[in-house]
């Protein structure tokens, strides 16, 4: 019963490469989020989007950009990957009408930048 999917579970890239992380949700949610999760730092919000073509910076947007061309898809882009972007990346979605039981996370993408 998968509701939020991420394009890759594990990804290895080299410094300077452009990296795309894709997230798709099938619940018709308005809000979508990208977090990174690091040991000792918990989940930190990178960007979020509350509507198609809308985006807002989170706590740590530097080095990242996002794209929301369709409601169900929210992409995280690393323009030029660096080693300090090695992390677990989590996508989430949330509806507006009903808050209860509508916050779903994807399985995560573990990105390693060499």
């Amino acid at each position: 019963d998968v509701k939020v999917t991420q394009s890759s579970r594990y990804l290895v890239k080299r410094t300077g490469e452009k990296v795309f992380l894709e997230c798709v949700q099938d619940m018709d949610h308005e809000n979508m989020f990208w977090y990174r999760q690091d040991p000792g730092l918990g989940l930190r919000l990178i960007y979020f989007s509350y509507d198609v073509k809308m985006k807002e910076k989170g706590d740590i947007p530097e080095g990242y950009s996002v794209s929301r061309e369709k409601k169900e898809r929210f992409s995280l882009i690393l323009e030029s990957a660096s080693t300090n972007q090695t992390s677990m990346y989590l996508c989430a979605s949330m509806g507006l009408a009903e808050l209860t039981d509508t916050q779903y996370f994807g399985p995560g993408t573990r990105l390693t930048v060499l």
Partner: protein
Amino acid sequence: GESVGLHLPTLSVQEGDNSIINCAYSNSASDYFIWYKQESGKGPQFIIDIRSNMDKRQGQRVTVLLNKTVKHLSLQIAATQPGDSAVYFCAELGPAGNMLTFGGGTRLMVKP
């Protein structure tokens, strides 16, 4: 800035005992709180939520308690099982209603 934090980074309990995981929040304007469970290698999974107009909510083997006076949230797990071993996060919904702020997480370890 506003933050949500946890008191204990690691909690070890005996199988069958009850577990209590605590969380402090600082944004008094938040009116919705969520507990997540994250198992190794997986994304966070929604467990239970509570609105600020409630002080207690029960699910299957889990209870969330909210004390707005001291801005404290707790998750109680009854008859803890090995499958409950995971990291538990509390999160609050910000005043804008579309941003979650997460605590740092507590690792629950269940001893057989």
